[in-house]
């Protein structure tokens, strides 16, 4: 008999209006490997367009009646998940092993993630899965230019899916791809038209998947460091094609193992003051006294429970941090990390 996981992952599909979220959702729902997925759809106002376009809504589907963008969705979302949970516990619906939420196009993903991570009942049974963002290759560039929500959705995503690349000009697709890689270098980017794209893989292999998480974490940093080097290079060349995005990613690495206590104080203090501007932090930490690395992962002020990886993903055993932030000075963040975490001769009580 299939058992419910101890912590059921909750995944989110986000993306701007008309960017192909529902099409992607339907592909996921058609995948046999995702058959045990409960789907939550957020209706927008009374029109319920997203609902009408869903081909099949079964008993695992709960419609969220509010299109509200911030706190009010939290209550409804929490209630919807709790209802599903209760029905699963009572055996009224098939056992689902993950939840997939399709948000409205205008939604800020953060309140949805916060609800799952912080609501007192849900946090004991559910955990955050992955955020998948769809970006329309025809309109994506102008949406990124004009809509801060669009930039935020792309910046917090774990997976980026470019849609409509078959009807967009190839040069435009390439410019958008390059821009997204700068905005969020640690998220793998796929094309929806790719016939080999496995929709089930998009929400598998997350950080809590014990078999896959080393690979997942390695990817964060490979791309982020390559992009950071590219950015520095381009900056010196004053590349005229680069967009002046207010959000950008930067990454740095340190050789020495760090003190976990000092790191916790520093990061929590930093996020308290600058969390609004720090869309994402991903860290692979060499912690004093630990053989294997610790991965940390934050979306604004929301920090996931740190995970202990079974092993280092490569021979590189440096502590590495990636920030995706709005208007934050990389040099100052680096200096602050050094002062508060690395060089702590001011501190007494070292072990």
């Amino acid at each position, binding site marked *: 008999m299939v058992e419910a996981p101890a912590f059921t992952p909750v995944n989110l599909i986000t993306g701007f209006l008309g960017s192909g979220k529902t099409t992607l959702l339907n592909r996921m729902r058609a995948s046999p490997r995702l058959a045990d997925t409960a789907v939550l759809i957020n209706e927008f106002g009374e029109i319920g367009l997203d609902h009408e376009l869903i081909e099949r809504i079964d008993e695992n589907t709960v419609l969220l009646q509010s299109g509200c963008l911030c706190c009010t969705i939290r209550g409804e979302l929490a209630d919807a998940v709790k209802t599903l949970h209760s029905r699963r516990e009572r055996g009224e619906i098939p056992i689902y092993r993950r939840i997939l939420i399709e948000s409205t196009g205008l939604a800020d993903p953060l309140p949805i993630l*916060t609800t799952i991570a912080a609501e007192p009942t849900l946090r004991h049974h559910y955990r955050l899965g992955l955020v998948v963002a769809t970006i329309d290759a025809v309109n994506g560039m102008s949406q990124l230019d004009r809509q801060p929500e669009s930039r935020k959705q792309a910046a917090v995503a774990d997976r980026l899916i470019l849609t409509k690349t078959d009807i967009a000009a190839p040069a435009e697709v390439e410019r958008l791809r390059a821009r997204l890689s700068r905005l969020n270098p640690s998220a793998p980017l796929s094309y929806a038209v790719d016939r080999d794209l496995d929709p089930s893989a998009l929400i598998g292999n997350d950080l809590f998947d014990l078999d896959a998480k080393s690979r997942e974490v390695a990817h964060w940093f490979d791309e982020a460091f390559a992009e950071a080097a590219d950015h520095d290079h381009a900056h010196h060349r004053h590349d005229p094609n680069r967009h002046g995005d207010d959000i950008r990613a930067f990454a740095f690495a340190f050789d020495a193992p760090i003190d976990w*206590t000092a790191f916790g*104080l520093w990061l*929590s203090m930093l996020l308290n*003051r600058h969390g609004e501007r720090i869309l994402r932090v991903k860290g692979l930490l060499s912690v004093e006294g630990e053989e294997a690395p610790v991965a*940390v992962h934050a979306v604004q002020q929301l920090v996931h429970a740190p*995970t*202990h990886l079974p092993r280092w993903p490569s021979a590189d055993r440096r502590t590495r941090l990636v920030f995706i932030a709005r208007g934050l000075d990389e040099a100052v963040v680096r200096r602050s990390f050094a002062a508060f975490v690395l060089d702590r001769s*001011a501190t007494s009580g070292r072990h």
Partner: protein
Amino acid sequence: MCALCGVLGGKDHWTEPLQREGVYVRHADPAGRRRERARRIAEANVILGQFGLTLSDWQSDSYVLATRTGKTEVVADLAALWPAAEKLAGRGLDPLDPAVLARREQANG
């Protein structure tokens, strides 16, 4: 800060999380957790001292934040600590502030 600062309750801050599969817990045993807690307080006091504040343990469950004039506030964890410290200090506690950084670097030698 709503849900993020602990208003919704539950003691499971990421720096001292509940034990479950795959989650990193610095010390799993009670004695180790107590040592870690004492270190956290000592480390926090180095930072908070710059702002005229001190932190102490409250029955191994919460923390008490105090000003030099004796105003106090009980906080549950680090998420609640920084907003409460800013309120008591009457200013932001910014680890990117050049003046804060300079003083920390000077103390580090």
